[in-house]
């Protein structure tokens, strides 16, 4: 792997960590875990850095969080997080980023809507497809109930999809050979 790829992998791992510093949006009274900006990092890694670099960037990020650095939103980290209810979502991150990168790599001239669709496929569909069964397993909940909990997160994720698409398109204009 060339030096530029290594630097990009490190950059997008760091970007996801830095997004965890943004104050999470807690929905008051609902008693649910907060919506964080970190999955925006996943979408951007896939959309900007591509399948291989984006996937490895998130793999590096979850490895750093697992060894005990407080990189996850709210200053959480350590192996314990992966056994928790949101562990599946974290493990899905590298796959989500790689999938987004792969889809966009196949269709370089994607329009805004197509690009947003690709980012949603990787950043929402793939992530939920791994995260929800994990949550159901850990909480012995059953899939329907786990899915019902996650409905609350979809609006926030849709906002992130639009943001990621806007930023990725802007970056492609600024760096045409990205």
């Amino acid at each position, binding site marked *: 792997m060339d030096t530029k790829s290594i630097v990009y992998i490190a950059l997008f*791992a760091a970007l996801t960590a830095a997004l965890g510093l943004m104050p999470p949006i807690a929905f008051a009274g609902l008693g649910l875990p907060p919506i964080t900006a970190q999955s925006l990092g996943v979408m951007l890694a896939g959309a900007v850095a591509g399948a291989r670099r984006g996937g490895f960037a998130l793999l590096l990020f979850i490895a750093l969080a697992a060894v005990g650095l407080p990189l996850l939103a709210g200053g959480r980290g350590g192996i314990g*997080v992966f056994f928790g209810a949101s562990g599946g979502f974290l493990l899905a991150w590298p796959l989500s980023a790689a999938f987004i990168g792969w889809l966009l790599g196949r269709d370089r001239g994607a329009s805004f809507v197509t690009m947003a669709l690709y980012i949603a496929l990787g950043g929402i569909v793939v992530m939920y497809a791994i995260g929800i069964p994990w949550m159901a397993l850990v909480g012995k909940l059953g899939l329907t109930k786990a899915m019902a909990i996650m409905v609350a997160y979809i609006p926030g994720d849709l906002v992130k999809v639009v943001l990621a698409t806007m930023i990725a398109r802007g970056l492609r204009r600024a760096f045409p050979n990205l």
Partner: protein
Amino acid sequence: MLDLYSPGTSVLHRLPPAPKLLALMIGATVMFLNENLLLTAAAAMAVLALYLLAQLSLKQALAQLRPLVWIFAIFFVLQWVFSGLELAAYVVLRLAALILLASLVTLTTRSSDMIDTLTRALRILKPIGANPAKIGLAISLALRFIPVLAQITADVREAQKARGLERSVIAVAMPVAIRTLKMADDISDAIESRGYRP
């Protein structure tokens, strides 16, 4: 460096990371396979006993669970309503015990030791093309980039404030993204120009 490590001199602190990680994997698997409430409660007590062995207070143990308190509450209520009190207690206890056990490994192991162990373990991947030196470079770059990104964001936000744009997400995110990508390109040129060939 930022780290969740809690310094100490106990047996668990002195144990190298590899056996601790192995014990965690075995412990977690056993807890997932076990379906008995009493055994799960016993396991949770045993994990708490390990915290005392590691000279950590029970307060520190509870602090590990605090971020998850709402998830616990939701799981507990859902299970209680749909499947009864016993299963509700089992699920929450198991989750708590697992997280406490994993956090214990994190609390008693320095991140740097864990990274060393990981990089050493990655040597077995050399035949399929993984290069531990490059992984090491990626790790140190990532850790260095985090404060740099925070600084760039602060700079851009200040600049946009002068334009009355500090509340616009795109007006802040776009310059940050362009600057960081530019920085990444400069850094990789700088590394290459110094003849870095791992």
